[in-house]
């Protein structure tokens, strides 16, 4: 699978089509803890199409924003609009694998959604093949390497064919080859029509995956623009500093 990844052509995706259907809309979202505005977004529209990559310095509120969008935390004020019939899934920075076999981890998600046994078996095998984990199907998921664990977490998130997939720095602790394997899976999901909304710190990864950048600073969206525009000509001073590796306060 890694050979396939290396051969893959990582084209920069076009800037979001303003007419593309909205998958998610944040309206007047505020998240306040101990009188601090951790997230403050008057309006943010995420559209169908190429990946949406959330960038910003540590503490900007990227992970909180992702959790707000996915509904894991409730905003102090405002609302997140999305089609409730649409299946969502999330992959965390550190993969949370259940104390079960590799195959058992995927099967669990399908079982929780009452997918019939016959369908489950085929789907588990297809996803294991996708993650290149067929030979390790029966072993405990927690004995896998870091890269394998994240691949498993990713295909497990894809088990229910989500329309939106949230990823919180899924390659933060992985080496380049494991990172490429994860990016290949993300690309595959994106090509299959899943909307990717992902937090990343890596400009290289952003340019490989393409799509749009939502630049977050101190809980506020400072830019929402195409990846290449953002990387070559960031508009806000904070983004310029961020990309230049400067310290932001």
């Amino acid at each position: 699978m890694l050979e396939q990844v290396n051969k893959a052509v990582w084209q920069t995706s076009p800037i979001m089509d303003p007419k593309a259907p909205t998958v998610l809309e944040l309206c007047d979202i505020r998240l306040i803890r101990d009188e601090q505005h951790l997230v403050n977004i008057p309006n943010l529209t995420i559209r169908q199409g190429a990946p949406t990559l959330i960038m910003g310095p540590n503490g900007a509120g990227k992970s909180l924003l992702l959790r707000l969008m996915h509904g894991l935390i409730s905003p102090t004020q405002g609302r997140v609009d999305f089609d409730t019939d649409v299946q969502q899934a999330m992959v965390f920075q550190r993969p949370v694998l259940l104390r079960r076999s590799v195959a058992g981890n995927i099967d669990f998600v399908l079982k929780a959604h009452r997918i019939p046994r016959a369908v489950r078996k085929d789907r588990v095998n297809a996803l294991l093949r996708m993650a290149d984990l067929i030979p390790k199907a029966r072993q405990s998921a927690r004995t896998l390497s870091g890269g394998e664990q994240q691949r498993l977490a990713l295909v497990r998130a894809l088990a229910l064919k989500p329309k939106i997939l949230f990823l919180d720095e899924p390659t933060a602790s992985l080496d380049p080859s494991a990172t490429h394997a994860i990016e290949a899976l993300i690309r595959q999901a994106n090509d299959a029509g899943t909307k990717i909304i992902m937090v990343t710190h890596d400009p290289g990864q952003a340019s490989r995956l393409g799509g749009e950048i939502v630049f977050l600073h101190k809980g506020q969206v400072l830019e929402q623009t195409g990846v290449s525009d953002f990387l070559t000509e960031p508009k806000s001073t904070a983004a310029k500093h961020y990309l230049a590796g400067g310290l932001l306060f």
Partner: protein
Amino acid sequence: MQDFASSLHSSFGMILSGDAQLWAIVLLSLRVSLTAVMIASVIGLPLGAFLAVSRFRGRQILVVMINALMGLPPVVVGLLVYLMLSNSGPLGVLQLLYTPTAMIIAQVVLITPIIAALSRQIIQVLDAEYDEQLRSIGLSRLGSIPVLLWDGRYNLLTAVLAGFGRAIAEVGAVIIVGGNINHVTRVMTTSIALETSKGNLELALALGVILLLLALIVNAAVSFIGQGARQTAYA
């Protein structure tokens, strides 16, 4: 000293020769305590998991209360169960006093808080790790309880073992509600107390040795299972 040595020698003789009276007492003890552990686990494990994952008013008070109940004095439990089951008590009509069932009830009351409190701690740690992932999959807080119980099974075994340890070694509650009736409600601990007071050290020592061996075997088994689970990263 010589007396002790000869008593110990005879007690081993009793164990190895398969003394009928001795083994009847051992088997009754196991029947009572294992049944109590099973019932207490059925109540205590889900209760502990519920307290770990749920958020409601008064939860903290309930947690403190269950933690406090871990230290329930067995004689007080015995007295309360006695009052419930005695002829004038609310459950007197069931005629359970001085039966093994009464002893099981007393042990269940005694060890359910232990199993619930320990499993609450174990599940709370696991829940901190699993919570977001399970909610992301679409499970509710209560819906995650079976998953947490299953995935925490090896650690929960320790909670169950602690309950068993307390039940099998307990004397105060069972002697009050069981009455220590020969061939009916005489278990290892009550027999040791009785036989020692009578000066029959052989039987008391033989039962003591078996009680110690039981504790050793159960602990070894749990540690063996736990070690195997950790090696395969299931714990």
